[in-house]
């Protein structure tokens, strides 16, 4: 759960994706294989090597208008290919806060 803000070297040890926040409203988004963005983690492009990760991040960062704060984050690939967040931070970003909001959505 090291803050992505401290992410200096790109070296991945397992399946990973690129995530960011959408510029106009800040919503969590994931880079997709067709060079776009999706709000669904299940649509994320998965990379498995550091070179792939660097390339995916580079094209994501290049979209400075659509997304802000892009970084690489780990995922788990479950049986059947389902993509799950690879750590608690990404779980919270994907699923929402772990508490009840003061005003239910």
């Amino acid at each position: 759960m090291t803050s992505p803000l401290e992410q200096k070297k790109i070296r991945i040890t397992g399946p990973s994706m690129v995530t960011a926040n959408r510029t106009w409203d800040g919503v969590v988004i994931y880079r997709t294989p067709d060079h776009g963005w999706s709000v669904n983690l299940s649509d994320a492009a998965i990379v498995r090597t550091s070179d792939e990760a660097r390339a995916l991040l580079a094209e994501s960062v290049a979209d400075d208008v659509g997304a802000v704060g892009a970084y690489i984050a780990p995922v788990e690939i479950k049986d059947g290919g389902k993509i799950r967040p690879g750590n608690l931070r990404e779980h919270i970003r994907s699923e929402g806060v772990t508490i009840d909001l003061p005003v239910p959505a």
Partner: protein
Amino acid sequence: MYAYDELDRTIINERVSEFRDQVKRRLSGELTEDEFKMLRLQNGVYLQLHAYMFRVAIPYGTLSSKQLRRLAHVARRYDRGYGHFTTRQNIQFNWIKLAELPDALSDLADVGIHAMQTSGNNTRNVTSDQWAGVAPDEIEDPRIWSELIRQYTTLHPEFSFLPRKFKFAITASAHDRAAIKVHDIGLRLHKNAEGETGFEVLVGGGLGRTPFIAKTIKPFVPGRDLLSYIEAILRVYNQYGRRDNIYKARIKILVHELGIEKFAQEVEDEWLQMRDSALTLDDEVVEDIRSRFSYPVYEKLPHMPEELKKAAHDPYFEAWRKNSVAPHKVTGYAIVTLSLKPVGGPPGDATADQMDAIADLADKYSFGEIRVGHEQNLALPHVARRDLPALWRELDKIGVATPNVNLVSDIIACPGLDYCSLANARSIPIAQELTRRFANHDTANLIGRLHVNISGCINACGHHHVGHIGILGVEKNGEEFYQITIGGRADENAVVGTLIGPAVPYGEVADVVEDIVEAYLALRARPDELFIDTVKRLGVEPFRERVYATR
């Protein structure tokens, strides 16, 4: 309340227009994020885990009912129906959309609220005692001076690109409710041996990665010299502060590395060159600020009205009154703290409906005024004691009359990993669990005054270093762990707490706090020895033994 003049209103409105244009250019791609980031930060806009976060200043913690209603409107119209009051007299909205921020700022500007300098490497919101102007023991209203500093530092070019953020806090009471010793500059209004009013100036306090308690740099600075002396401090900081290393950039590091004597000499040398410059505050300037604060016209009322005598038979009312009602400088009136720490709730959060209801109650019972304290509670500063029973019933209906002010469940907590992009661990669920463990009021009352502070990372927004019990979230191999300190305090006797041992996992934190509290109950010399005094008398060892004996 302070009434803005035409200049204040012009500055705020121009800032809204400027930011509207900046947002438009950002969304069109004319500005890159790198170019835009500093601009948004200077308007209180962060990027958090799920969305943008918008931090709005509540200078010296004073709000009118009209302003609170407008904050409720922003929560409802632009966010998800609630806001989070912080440890620095700000309110944060967690789900704001960048495209709608200019409209939100514009709506706030209509009632004299802004977000200028609530982020970035500049002078931040000037904070003060939430009981300013009504505390019986204060020298004078510290908000006059807070407002002077606010006006002087806002958009000041020399203070807009400091090595790092810079925070002021001011108190005028012997008992420090503003935590001035953990601020970059702390100011304590007091009288010298000749009976003159002036400031003890403290410098270099701060929490975060490297906590320091502020040191007195000058025991007495007359009011006329306040701005020139502050400017001298900031000039020395601007000249020598580290810009090459963010972790060493705060003034506390400079003061520590130079030593307070050397730092003070540098400031003195700078000050002597400018002491009698245009920054000298003549009485006219101070009086002009003072005249823009309005005070209620109080009635002549008895200290113990019939309504209060009658209500004293109700144990629930009495439980609330003892913890939530404080003496006022005017006979017949009281200061009422509204707990934003319900059992099982996130500390410091208030819904838009609660804000509207509190604004109505402020109009009905407190001359339309509300205060925000650094403990993440609100206060009504001018309540007639005869109205306390009626007010209590209405506060209870909206969930802000939990009788836990200053007790173990009155927890200060940062948003933690549920919201914050810097956090390593969650804070709010820990706080919620602790409020459930200590929900029994009789038990909490038996324990007495005990401040628990929780931070989700070393940046220490929950002020864990100065909690009687401090809880710091850290990460170990991808799991949430928590370091526990005890013996910290943020008042006039401020001290940084001591670590009691190895970090414990998420699921054990509440058990550890219960163990510490049980140890205290067994170890205290008498029922009225506070937790903090028992720790001071015995040190941390007995608590460490208790916590780790079975772990």
